[in-house]
């Protein structure tokens, strides 16, 4: 596709400031460039990756994003040491509600936010509770590297528990202070990809998330959300065609001003077919 080439040209010229940008740009340019040295160099001694380059706070979202990129970019044998270290860190990192003390607090004393504390996943950074985006990406990272872990089951159950009643996923909860929360397109897309990668296709939460995502961006030109939606609905030919047209229009509006993350996601979503984040070429 002609315009996708222009997006890739724009991406080549971009400097990156975060692991998310680096991983997504590397994925988008994987057809021509498979150098992972910057990813390896930015891994922290604990095994996790920070997000903003130069910072030292390991982040489950960016660690998972780096793992997904490495799975698509490398001969798996070359990355084995870094990957083992990263999964070691992910296995030790859990939302704070996973600890019995906080589980007790949320169960008996703090009911302002509603969720089942026995179902927990990954936090963005250590010392906080589980959220949808890092949990979904950690599940995808485990699946794409075919790493069995009881944490994947628990992460899936957390995603199912926290689905919004109107479909899709908010940042982390489905209800707070007695109010049902509404979903966000990107978190919904990540949740859908994660659950499908584990073979969960027919669950009502998956069906209602697909419905939400199919209708939510009907009039939008927001590149980042459209790209995530396209990656999540890649198996629905009708939605692929609709979202692809809208995404192309969105990128053409002002490609130079789009954030690197949005451009890279757009490049991945505009592949034909859109990239399957959970499957890598053997």
């Amino acid at each position, binding site marked *: 596709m002609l315009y996708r080439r222009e997006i890739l040209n724009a991406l080549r010229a971009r400097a990156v*400031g*975060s692991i*998310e940008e680096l991983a997504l740009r590397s994925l988008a340019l994987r057809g021509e460039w498979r150098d992972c040295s910057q990813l390896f160099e930015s891994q922290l001694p604990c095994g996790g990756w*920070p*997000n*903003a380059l*130069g*910072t030292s*706070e390991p*982040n489950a*979202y960016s660690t998972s994003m780096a793992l997904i990129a490495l799975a698509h970019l490398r001969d798996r044998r070359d990355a084995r040491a870094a990957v083992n270290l990263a999964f070691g860190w992910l296995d030790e990192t859990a939302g*704070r509600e996973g600890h019995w003390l906080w589980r007790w607090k949320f169960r008996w004393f703090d009911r*302002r936010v509603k969720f089942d504390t026995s179902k927990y996943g990954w*936090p*963005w*950074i250590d*010392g*906080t*509770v589980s*959220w949808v*985006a*890092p949990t979904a990406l950690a599940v995808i990272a485990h699946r794409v590297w075919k790493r069995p872990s009881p944490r994947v089951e628990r992460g899936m159950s957390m995603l199912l528990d926290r689905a919004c009643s109107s479909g899709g996923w*908010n*940042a*982390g909860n489905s209800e*707070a*202070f*007695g*109010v049902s929360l*509404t979903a*966000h*397109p*990107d978190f919904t897309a990540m949740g859908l990809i994660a659950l499908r990668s584990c073979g969960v296709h027919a669950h009502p939460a998956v069906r209602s998330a697909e419905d939400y995502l199919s209708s939510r961006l009907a009039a*939008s*030109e*927001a*590149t*980042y*959300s459209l790209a995530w939606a396209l990656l999540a609905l890649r198996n629905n030919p009708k939605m692929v065609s609709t979202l692809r047209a809208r995404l192309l229009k969105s990128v053409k509006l002002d490609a130079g001003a789009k*954030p690197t*993350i*949005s451009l890279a996601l757009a490049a991945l979503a505009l592949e034909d077919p859109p990239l399957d984040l959970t499957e890598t070429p053997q």
Partner: protein
Amino acid sequence: MNRRSLLGGASLAATGALAVHETSRHRVPDRRRPMSRVAILRCESYKRAAQVVWDGIQLLEPQVAGKHVLLKPNLVEYSPSASINTHPIVIAATADAFYSLGALKVLVGDGPGHVRDSELVLEESGLRDALRSVGRLRFIDLNFDRVRAVRTQTSLTNLKELWLPQSVLAADVVVSMPKVKTHHWAGVTLSLKNLFGVVPGSVYGWPKNILHWQGIDNSIVELAATVSVHYVIADGIEAMEGNGPLHGPARHLGCLVFADDPVAADSACCSLMDVDPHCIRHLAKASSLGNLDPRRWELLGDRIASLRQTFQPPPMMTFARVGSSTPEARGRSAP
């Protein structure tokens, strides 16, 4: 000296040392000026907002010629049925006014707490079109900006440093532009709580959950002590009461609040909401960062009492009303 008096003396000394340590640990810098300027201007609808913004900014006499100005609105997420975000007309009018006063560059920047796609919020809230109408105006997503570590100014939290966006640190003038709202964790969300939006999600995640775990009130004060806010322009035309900051009903307050002191601005907004500012924990803790006490305000424009409305508190919270808490507070209540 017998053993009993020795032990007694030692425990007294230890208690004293602990008290001194705790006092200094929680010390917030004293940045109070002799007087702060606060202007409250009636504004019944957003149709008049551009003119009222210009009038209010002129009352503040901001020194912005040749400077880089960062406007920090409250941009959370969009809902067609809720009054959540600082209105685009107020933001665009402010940018326009600062350019008219000679600002070299005006940026609008925020890092929404729950939403990673600020493009979607800009599009749906109408802010994208409003910014385009001004021209020379760029939006910076502070969640994804380049960051630099800054030492925190108090020890209220365990955070020894905060990673903050370059655009905030590089600005000569920072203008906090909150929406006047109640908040289910912090009581109210005004110019100080609005600083949560300068904390980058790319480092801390969405939401910036680390700040909640460090104590929301302490985190607000830590941020206020670390990031200088030079001016406040608060959108109180359509405010929010009850289950804020997202799900409360709209409350037509009908005014804009201007100040050169964030503590004074928040105190004035609380008074407008009929909330005793001394009973908002983060505001009481931040009281040395500005003038909470209206006796140290040069109050311009309308009188607070003529605009005051009684806002419903968030769920599971009660508000002490203006003048109802202590005789001393009654003496201090804003005119």
